[in-house]
């Protein structure tokens, strides 16, 4: 077996050193009834690299590759071009095969990268600080709700109807066990977000208001008044960003007054990967840092006075605090954070803002083109790179038919909200820099034919 260096001769020599007659002697503590007498039945034996590659390639070929067709899916996962150097660098063995940096003297590479990542994320989200990553946006979102409960000592969270329905589901699952009360609703197919309604609902029991920006339909709304209203009632405003590239073009939630800003960082560096692994972004105001979940990297000095970095404030974490920890999270998403950070460094201020404008410009042009398809109506008026169309018929079968024709048209709201009849004609379309004019034309033409 190519990954096992011990030879039979080594094994025999080592067994004799440890005083065992056979390998079975080392498993004497396993009760006989639980011992398998040979390899697990019903599974194949080892295979060569070539054979495995053939097997996996055959499976991969059964999927429609986003980059090979006109592609318009978003709703929490976006296809962006990732520079070749990103994937090359994250495959450096010193990053790829390192562990969590618990021994900082020999992990400064990971630690400095995390410190840079935290700074980039905090600046992007407009928060004072950010942590070293969470699993993904949805888990970062419910961790933020839990954090708001600890800070405000209140148990009711108001979720905007524009929050990604998977994020709502995750929060509801957790709330069943933590006892938080969650108020949520499906969105309406209109240009208006529910910010005014959210403001009206904040009361003395509200721990937090959770609002997605841009929201699930692609809409963007000013959060400043909502932030002020939260502050007045001593509730926290949690903003959720599932498309971080947007923040190159629009104001950050932090600068509009959000207390905690979480996000999905997949757009930068990570790729679609059928939903994971992704990277959760988590930022907040300085005063809440000791209630944050997850790992934090901090600057310090070594015994010789040189600058260095360490994991810090670990008294919040499970390996120190055990049952009193702020979260049970241990492994996070370090390598995806690295990919995010490298992509962000390659872009820089100029590149991110430029990329955001390319996305927005292409999306506006696509929205206008698609709205010309007979019977199709553009629902969203203020948006970044994702918008919602109202079709004259149910969108879900249309999406399936278009997929059969080789066009991945977007995400139907019927898929996301199977119970909401009034949303079933809705189609959410994302347009990033990878979409060409020909792709838009292909979608418009195919849509027109399918709807005719």
């Amino acid at each position, binding site marked *: 077996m*190519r990954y096992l260096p011990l030879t039979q001769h080594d094994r025999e020599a080592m067994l004799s050193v*440890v005083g065992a007659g056979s390998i079975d002697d*080392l498993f004497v503590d*396993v009760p006989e009834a*639980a*011992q398998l007498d040979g*390899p*697990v*039945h019903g599974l194949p*034996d*080892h295979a060569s690299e070539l*054979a*495995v590659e053939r097997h996996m390639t*055959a*499976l991969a070929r059964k*999927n429609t590759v986003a980059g090979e067709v006109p592609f318009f899916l978003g709703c929490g*996962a976006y*296809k962006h071009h990732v520079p070749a150097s990103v994937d090359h660098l994250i495959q450096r063995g*010193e990053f790829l*095969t*390192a562990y*969590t940096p618990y021994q*900082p*003297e*020999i992990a400064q590479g990971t630690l400095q990268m995390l410190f840079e990542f935290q700074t980039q994320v905090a600046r*992007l989200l407009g928060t004072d600080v950010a942590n070293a990553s969470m*699993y*993904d946006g949805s888990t970062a979102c419910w961790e933020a709700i839990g954090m708001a409960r600890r800070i405000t000592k209140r148990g009711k969270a108001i979720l905007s109807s524009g929050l990604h329905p998977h994020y709502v589901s995750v929060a509801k699952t957790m709330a069943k*066990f933590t006892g938080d009360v969650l108020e949520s609703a499906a969105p309406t197919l209109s240009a208006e977000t529910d910010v005014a309604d959210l403001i009206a609902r904040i009361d003395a029991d509200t721990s937090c208001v959770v609002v997605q920006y841009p929201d699930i339909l692609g809409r963007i709304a000013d959060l400043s008044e909502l932030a002020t209203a939260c502050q007045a009632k001593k509730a926290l405003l949690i903003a959720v960003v599932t498309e971080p590239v947007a923040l*190159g073009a629009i*104001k950050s939630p932090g600068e509009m007054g959000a207390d905690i800003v979480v996000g999905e960082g997949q757009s930068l560096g990570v790729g679609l*990967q*059928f*939903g*994971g692994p992704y990277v959760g972004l988590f930022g907040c105001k300085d005063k809440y840092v000791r209630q944050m979940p997850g790992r*934090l990297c901090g600057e*310090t000095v*070594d015994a010789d*006075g*040189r600058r*260095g970095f360490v994991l810090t*404030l670990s008294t919040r974490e499970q390996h120190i605090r*055990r*049952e009193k920890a702020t979260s*049970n999270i241990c*492994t*996070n*998403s*370090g390598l995806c954070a690295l990919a995010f950070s490298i992509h962000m460094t390659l872009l*820089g*201020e*100029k590149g991110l803002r*430029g990329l955001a404008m*390319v996305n*927005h410009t292409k999306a506006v042009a696509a929205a206008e083109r698609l709205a010309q398809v007979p019977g199709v109506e553009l629902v969203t008026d*203020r948006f970044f790179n994702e918008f919602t169309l109202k079709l004259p018929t149910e969108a879900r079968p249309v999406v*399936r038919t278009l997929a059969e024709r080789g066009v991945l048209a977007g*995400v139907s709201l019927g898929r996301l909200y*199977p*119970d909401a009849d009034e949303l079933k004609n809705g189609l959410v379309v994302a347009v990033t820099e990878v979409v060409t004019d020909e792709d838009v034309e292909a979608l418009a033409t195919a849509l027109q034919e399918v709807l005719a």
Partner: protein
Amino acid sequence: MNAINQSGWKPQMNAREGGAPMTSTGNKALMLEEALIFEIGSDETCGVDLPEVDAAASRLGDLARERPIGLPGLSEPEAVRHYTRLSRQNYAIDLGLFPLGSCTMKHNPRLNEKMARLPGFADVHPLAPVDSIQGALEVIHQLAHWLVTLTGMHSVAMSPKAGAHGELCGILAIKAALEACGESGRKVILVPESAHGTNPATAAFAGFTVEDIPATPEGRVDLAALTARLGPDVAGVMITNPNTCGLFERDMKAISDAVHEAGGFVYCDGANFNAIVGRVRPGDLGIDAMHINLHKTFSTPHGGGGPGSGPVVFSEALAPYAPLPFVEKHGDHFVLVEEETARQEQHGSSFGRMVAFHGQMGMFTRALTYILSHGADGLRQVAEDAVLNANYVLRRLEDVLDAPFGGSGPCMHEALFSDEGLAEGFTTLDVAKGLIDEGYHPMTMYFPLVVHGAMLVEPTETESKAALDQFIDALRSVAERAKAGDASLKSAPHFAPRARLDETLAARKPVLVWKEQPLAEAAE
């Protein structure tokens, strides 16, 4: 462009090296200092060329960004150099033995990486119509089949994002099952003192009260004490097997039977599954739920702290409560069971969704590649070699380091030592830092908590005998210095990119984001 660590290096730092010549850069040949991107990048630099677009009317309204973000950019050559230089300040499996107990730092096969990057896996959207992603669902289904078969369990939830998330999945299923049968009065989860910190944190998050289970002098769960504590208030136990002392819980089946008899459930922390994969099926030990760290047993890379992946296998009793979504095979067709279909198809008792989308697909492709490479025979050999390597380390070092459970029989995949016998004032930390100078990542320190100054060594099966012999000699020499009171060990490491770092300062005055005024200068 200046690549010197501007805030850090000062000429007098070389003084302790007894006359070694100073360098003006702070670099020492191949040991290179590297500044932060905020010190070397600029707002105007960009390493990406963007497509040209015709200007169009904005749809951003008054939300258009006005303030700068503050993101420095680097050109591609600068970026490649920055991250390459940073990478060289890391220790990694690719460089040498990484004996971090309980972490299973085994070789990460590169075929896994290649397969995960096939466009058919890497460039597929999670919400694409299911007919267009049948291959992705088939990967999940095949991996699920392997995991269920290897563990002898009933079913598996694939979506948890890491081990701790898997623990949460298992504990939530237990809670849902108890509620479903009107047993929500059971509020106590019993956890051995030797457990990973995530166990009590998880149980507490789910609203349980955590109580310790005592251990026997030989390092195993005290069955009599456990049985005595069981009762109508106990929801279940969380037990790591093999345990964190590196021992197989001989009484596991008896523990499970007793817990079931008392109306509770058994959660097994599967972090140490590598020791028994292919030799023991947890399902035969009465386990109700167990997470499997794909990033440990099944070789997906740790990546400097993730991403992981923590599928959870379930017994028949807990299976109905497993989270959404999951993949089912209907004839030749793979179906993704989400909220909608779950209701239609009588999966209504699922406790709900834990993540957006479907879990760590990128880790599934890697783990399946690894599993297919080894096959059933190879995986059994993995466990045997992992256990043999650990016993070899234990027996070859127990004359110089105290092995508190060395008399409890063979160890499993990891060897546990204590700080007993080190010279006055010398600690496990000193041994660990001394090992760094010898070119090794240290073992897990001060865990498990049940052993004073614990040193937990897990070599894994991907080390050769020659590599083990070298490591054993290195650890022996450091241990002997610690026993002899060699003062130079107190200031180790001497040859790493940094000397010991001031963690107290970092926690007392947290600097978590870069600021213009570097800490080292500000402190003067």
